């Protein structure tokens, strides 16, 4: 791409003095008392100068016109601070940035909403605060109300809205901004499932419209589908910057405090294996590490392992990890006491039929563990990406809520529900 740079950040650094943060809300009396104390002790900076905190540390990058860039990293990595600095809400301690174009920042849903005012009034107020012109808001008003689906209540004070309606209207205003550069902070994780999908679709629309976007999210699936490029922040600094697939893989691997994805790592130092090279290789069947299944479909893991030395026995394990890094399910042939003994070989085929694992829709990564039957010797963090798509598993007429709503697992128990006083043996009435 040879388009113009829209956002250029050079060495952005933001330092907070922790002591300054602590006294920030204090009263004049405390300040005076503090000053007196300092005079008394004779030194101005005892503990103060030490308690500094770098929220951003020398962050540099360039975003070109029309690029949609994901910002990922754990909480406290500096993502939000970076957006705040670029939005001119707070100033950097050093470094500089330039932004070429009209900017809209979306750091929370409902910025400027005033509970006492009606939906209509809030659309105009919030729109103006987010940087829209009055005429622009008026022109898109119907579209906004439509998108939010609150047309009937548009003249009701928003304090009487349900939280879902409130959030929908607030997002709708923001979604109809038309700036050249947008900063968006984790605002998609709102509303019900249907609305979340609508938001993502809208975001995708916006992204395709040639807007330059910096997008913070913990929803790696959303980042992956919206942003071709991602920047991974850790401790205020840029760890990786590049194609989202690679950067996310790196992030997921890092989350596990381990090496990069795909590469194996030694766990146990068994002489038999590590002598010479300790390089194991994993070859996925169909040469694809991306597994795609519908909710409720059987999941099969199939791959070939190449060991540095001939082995007489091989054991394998897998660990399913959610996109937020939680371990969902572990499995191991070794724990199940399944022995795969054969003539010495350097290549082993592994097939793991997980069956109908009750995973909700979402993305997961699968770590693969390889052992010699007695202990694990190596593992491949995030060897596979597993994406589970929504599906009406039980034929209920609606898909199951995704991982973000129901957690990683679904379950369909047998319910017994009846008014108190009657017996709970009304299965035919309830089960239908």
């Amino acid at each position, binding site marked *: 791409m040879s388009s113009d740079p829209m956002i250029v950040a050079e060495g952005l650094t933001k330092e907070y003095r922790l002591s300054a943060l602590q006294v920030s809300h204090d009263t004049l009396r405390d300040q005076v008392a503090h000053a007196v104390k300092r005079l008394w002790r004779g030194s101005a900076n005892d503990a103060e100068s030490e308690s500094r905190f770098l929220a951003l540390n020398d962050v540099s990058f360039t975003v070109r*016109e029309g690029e949609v860039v994901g910002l990922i990293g754990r909480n406290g990595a500096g993502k939000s601070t970076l957006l705040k600095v670029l939005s001119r*809400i707070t100033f950097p301690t050093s470094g500089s940035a330039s932004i070429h*174009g009209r900017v809209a920042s979306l750091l929370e849903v409902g910025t400027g909403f005033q509970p006492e*005012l009606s939906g209509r*009034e809030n659309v105009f107020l919030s729109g103006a605060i987010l940087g829209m012109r009055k005429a622009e808001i008026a022109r898109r008003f119907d579209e906004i109300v439509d998108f939010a689906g609150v047309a009937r209540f548009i003249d009701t004070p928003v304090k009487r809205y349900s939280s879902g309606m409130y959030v929908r209207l607030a997002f709708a205003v923001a979604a109809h901004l038309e700036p050249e550069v947008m900063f968006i902070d984790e605002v998609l994780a709102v509303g019900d499932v249907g609305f979340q999908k609508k938001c993502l679709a809208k975001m995708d629309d916006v992204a395709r419209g040639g807007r330059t976007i910096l997008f913070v999210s913990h929803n790696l699936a959303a980042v992956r*589908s919206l942003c071709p490029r991602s920047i991974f922040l850790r401790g205020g600094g840029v760890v990786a910057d590049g194609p989202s697939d690679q950067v996310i893989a790196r992030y997921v691997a890092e989350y596990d405090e381990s090496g990069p994805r795909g590469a194996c790592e030694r766990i146990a130092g068994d002489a038999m294996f590590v002598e010479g090279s300790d390089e194991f290789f994993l070859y996925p069947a169909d040469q694809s590490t991306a597994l795609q299944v519908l909710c409720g479909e059987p999941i099969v893991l199939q791959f070939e392992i190449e060991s540095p030395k001939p082995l007489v026995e091989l054991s394998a394990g897998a660990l399913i990890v959610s996109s937020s890094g939680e371990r969902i399910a572990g499995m191991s042939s070794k724990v199940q006491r399944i022995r795969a003994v054969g003539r010495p070989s350097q290549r082993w085929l592994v097939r793991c039929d997980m069956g109908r694992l009750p995973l909700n829709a979402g993305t997961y990564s699968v770590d693969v563990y390889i052992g010699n039957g007695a202990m694990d010797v190596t593992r491949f963090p995030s060897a596979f990406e597993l994406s589970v798509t929504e599906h009406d598993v039980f034929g209920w007429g609606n898909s199951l809520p995704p991982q973000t709503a129901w957690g990683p697992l679904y379950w369909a128990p047998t319910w017994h529900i009846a008014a108190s006083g009657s017996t709970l043996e009304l299965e035919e009435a309830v089960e239908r």
Partner: protein
Amino acid sequence: MTVSRSPAVPASALGRPPVIQIKAADGPATLNLRELATNWELLYFLVWRDIKVRYKQTAIGAGWAILQPLTTMVIFTAVFGRLASIPSDGLPYPVFAFAGLLPWTYFAAALSRSGNSLVSNGNLITKVYFPRLLIPLSAVLSPLVDFIITLGLVALMMMWYGVVPAVAILTLPAFVLLAAASALALSLWLSALCVRYRDVGVVIPFLVQIGMYVSPVAYPTSLVPERWRFLYSVNPMAVVIDGFRWALLGTAPPDLFGSAVSCALVAVIFYGGLLYFNRVERVFADVV
């Protein structure tokens, strides 16, 4: 999963957009008047919001704008006019008091609202960028609506008491402007200070109360001893109130030299306030 993207609309096709420079906060503060001007619509919406929200879900709504100064006037008339027999420059005391209360009520409302304005709008300041100056500015402008309503009441009272205004009434807008400028000048300091020192929020009602006694709201300036007169007239609100009475009721005009000095004082406080506000503006979001 890869998503193909349609080609971007070049921003250059829309005319080269403005470049926003973000740098560490150092060097002298600057006032970006152009930026302020491009945001006049937002100013309008902020004022509009203040006005809308103020009387939402109240039984008599904007009636409060009249009721507050009216009650004060009645009390003043009873206490100062009757009991203390404070002179009123030959005018019926109620009209005299009300003509003073009119600008004072505005000034007091503007000052108390704008003094706390940055803190009460903290949620905006930490989430979105716009010229921060708009916040105290809108808080100073919004009580003007109450002021105009009250002005109508003053006109009715003048008719009732048969007071005919002179040509001087044409100068009224100038005094309104001075009142607004004084309120804004002080609130630049107070609102910015309040971000760091919440004490200011406590001090403002107190300041307003003291201010009323050192301004000729309940009594005429002519009651002030001659040798203190000049010092007294440096108070911009004394100039404003005397100006109002002069313009509406035809009393003696405010002292010209004193007026000039107090205008200069407002200008100095205003400019200093701008510099201070600009300097502190950079840390609002970190501190508020």
